[in-house]
């Protein structure tokens, strides 16, 4: 019985139980759900516990895009239920695999349906037309679902148009363990009523009734009252019957264990430069002068959870691999939107996307990686974007806006036509501060103005062309910004890479010593030795292939690490950097 019940679709709520920004506490076969509708209309049905400490998510906060746990403020994304932010560690990106258990959701007959292991479809009731229905108030009953369903077959009621009558003939049109469809006829009046019995637990049910035909105003209230009285009487009778039998033991749904890698302090998952996700270009449009916007939708399933600052590798039809930041705001999880600037000196990446890739094309992309995580514990956050550097900062600004955290987005561009994604930036209101057509000197003066007044708990995020980033970092340092408060992301590494040295790399945890010859990178040598190391841009800009140095002196050639990190000598980007000492020991 239970196995069968698990495969069936059951109603767990009425549509009106999910008003704006509400979280509904549902239950099916002993398992609790947190049910919430995001502002984009998507209905989320999740296991009702935060993965961190088991606190019910039904007491959490639905901000329209994400669900926030009340205990430690962990945020989970609409649709994917992936964790996007852990406030206790604001500088880190949460492990991608922290994802809550989700259950299927279908809206039908004014009810929200789910199933533990769904097979087939939501029950089809002939004669019930979608949209022309009246959903009755759910009636909870302390009795097993099959007992309730059996009783419902004898339910007697009047058609909507003949409520005052007493002699309606009621016939059973269809029935099974959880569903009873009845038709009441009196004179010319007829009403079809479908009752779905939600098995809440072994000895608890909810009767969810739906009537055909729309009834409005006072007549609607009269119909609701009619059924409320009759169903309440039925409830009393069923509970009296059930009380004679021994109550079945409550169901104990199995709570799945988290993955082994989450059981200990989370480490970065290991994956190479793989493009496991297939997306379709759902829309391509001019996002600004010289910038193409691409909306990428999954071919099947859901896209992985992303965090603001994350980028994806896009594998292009011409074999090139390029990195693009995800511009989406929080909870916008049905597609990724990226912006691609046509580079004058394109080596084929941006040209291919601008000229060759069209709407409908399928592309391979990597999972999102976040090497540019956004802290949300600042009293004020400044974003400084130059040109296409807007893309990661746009995602960040939308996240802070959604949480009502103080921020300013300074957007430098040549002219108004070059300001990308106006439909997104316009939602930021007064926090968006465009700076148009400034010369390098004027830009420097403006940066000085923006970066004056450093105070504790202020953070700045920079993304833009190399020279502008250099200037901004320099000015920030002059103005007293500590390096820990200055976060940046370069588009590319313009340093000339010197790969003429040869040295030894010892991998402490793998117990391996490798020789890196001139002309090869540490990353390549490790890959050759069978070590699976994640990487993305492979030019020292994105931060994916970061490794910890235990011993030896790194020869930094990247643009990802800041000066303090370089000087500490404890981190290295394995795709471009090398060793000044004869030997490096890495924590790998």
């Amino acid at each position: 019985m239970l196995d069968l019940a698990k495969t069936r679709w059951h109603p767990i709520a009425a549509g009106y139980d999910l008003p704006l920004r509400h979280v509904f506490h549902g239950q099916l076969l002993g398992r609790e759900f947190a049910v919430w509708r995001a502002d984009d209309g998507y209905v989320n049905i999740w296991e009702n516990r935060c993965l961190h400490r088991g606190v019910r998510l039904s007491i959490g906060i639905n901000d329209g895009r994400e669900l926030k746990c009340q205990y430690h403020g962990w945020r989970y994304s609409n649709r994917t239920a992936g964790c996007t932010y852990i406030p206790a560690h604001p500088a880190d990106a949460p492990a991608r695999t922290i994802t809550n258990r989700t259950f299927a959701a279908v809206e039908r007959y004014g009810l929200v349906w789910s199933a533990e292991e769904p097979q087939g479809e939501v029950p089809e009731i002939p004669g019930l037309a979608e949209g022309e229905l009246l959903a009755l108030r759910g009636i909870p009953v302390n009795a097993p679902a099959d007992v309730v369903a059996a009783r419902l077959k004898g339910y007697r009621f009047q058609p909507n148009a003949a409520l005052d009558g007493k002699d309606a003939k009621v016939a059973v049109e269809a029935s099974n363990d959880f569903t009873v469809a009845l038709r009441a006829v009196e004179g010319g009046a007829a009403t079809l009523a479908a009752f779905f019995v939600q098995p809440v637990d072994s000895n608890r049910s909810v009767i969810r009734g739906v009537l055909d035909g729309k009834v409005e105003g006072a007549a609607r209230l009269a119909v609701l009252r009619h059924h409320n009285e009759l169903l309440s009487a039925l409830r009393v009778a069923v509970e009296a019957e059930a009380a004679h039998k021994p109550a079945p033991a409550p169901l104990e749904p199995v709570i799945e264990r988290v993955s082994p890698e989450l059981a200990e302090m989370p480490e970065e998952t290991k994956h190479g430069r793989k493009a496991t996700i297939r997306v379709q270009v759902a829309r391509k449009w001019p996002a600004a002068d010289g910038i193409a916007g691409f909306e990428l939708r999954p071919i099947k399933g859901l896209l992985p959870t992303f965090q603001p600052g994350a980028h994806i590798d896009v594998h292009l039809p011409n074999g090139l691999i390029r990195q693009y930041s995800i511009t989406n705001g929080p909870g916008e999880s049905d597609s990724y939107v990226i912006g691609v600037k046509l580079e004058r000196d394109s080596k084929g990446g941006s040209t291919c996307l601008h000229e060759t890739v069209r709407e409908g094309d399928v592309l391979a992309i990597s999972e999102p990686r976040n090497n540019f995580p956004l802290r949300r514990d600042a009293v004020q956050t400044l974003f400084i974007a130059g040109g296409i550097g807007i893309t990661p900062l746009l995602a960040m600004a939308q996240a802070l806006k959604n949480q009502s955290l103080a921020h300013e987005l300074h957007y430098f561009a040549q002219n108004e036509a070059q300001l990308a994604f106006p439909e997104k930036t316009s939602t930021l209101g007064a926090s968006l501060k465009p700076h148009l057509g400034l010369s390098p000197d004027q830009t420097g003066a403006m940066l000085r103005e923006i970066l004056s007044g450093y105070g504790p708990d202020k953070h700045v995020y920079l993304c833009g062309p190399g020279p502008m980033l250099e200037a901004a970092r320099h000015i920030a340092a002059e103005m007293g910004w500590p390096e820990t408060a200055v976060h940046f992301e370069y588009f590319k590494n313009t340093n000339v890479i010197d790969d003429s040295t040869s040295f030894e790399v010892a991998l402490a945890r793998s117990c391996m010593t490798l020789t890196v010859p001139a002309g090869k990178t540490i990353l390549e040598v490790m890959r050759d030795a069978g070590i699976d190391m994640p990487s993305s841009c492979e030019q020292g800009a994105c931060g994916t292939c970061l490794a910890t140095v235990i011993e030896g002196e790194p020869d930094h050639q990247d643009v990802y690490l800041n000066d303090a990190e370089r000087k500490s000598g404890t981190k290295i980007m394995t795709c471009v950097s090398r060793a000044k000492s004869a030997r490096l020991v890495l924590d790998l």
Partner: protein
Amino acid sequence: MSIAALCSDRVLLNDWHVVADLTNLSAAEPFQTRLLGVDITIHCRGRYNKEVVRNDTGALVNSTKRYGFLWACLGTPERDIVFVPEAEEGDRYLVTGGSIAVKVSGLRAVENFLDMGHFPFVHTGWLGDEPHTEVAPYKVELTAADELVATECKFYQPVASPTAKEGFIVDYVYKVIRPYTVALYKSNPVHKARLDVITLFVQPVDEDNCVAHPFLCYLKDGVDQAGIRNFMQLIFAQDKPILENQVPRRLPLDPRAETPIRADAVAVLYRRWLRDKSVTYGAIPARM
């Protein structure tokens, strides 16, 4: 009351547990409570003499008074009640913080007491405030006395104590003394070099229920006893609804039951320490 599972953990049966705040006991009426699943009744025989009796067998239970509480041991006491040295210092108020019943395993209540990450979200405006949410790395160790100690804990707090007038970074030390006993030491806002101490004695009512009995040793300067008790109850009242929404109610010791982060280092060690001590009452044992 429903039938509760009985305890078979010797380390708990043969230890002392608080069963009542003495100020809650009245000579006029026996006091009913439950310890480790056993229903007990406290009778006041005269002004100073208290008797604890098992409801099931009518047998007398070992009991004694200390720190303003009545203590009971269902088995044979193997060690003395936890010693609180600060209770001997004359310039402190010794205040019981009210006995707060919480529908959750006492082990969950102890873990919550060890947790800084929830301050901005549960104790908003008092012990924390968004966006100051970071839990900086701290040290955890198991001492020679078999206690768990977390040191170098720091957290920004807007109103850290009854006397605090402004927000400041508060230094904490946490100590897990016994499975159901935990203490915290936090910097006093007036005497910055000295520490106020709160020891939380958790009464394991049964596996899914507890009563938290806070014992506060606060420096007298600038505070009164009512203020201290008020503050403690305000804070605990904020924790209670969150604790009562933890699923499952018992503390899972399986490392894969929940998702720890670095901020939870002390909780990770606490769960491991309970496993090593074979404490199962109030816990869901780890799967092998």
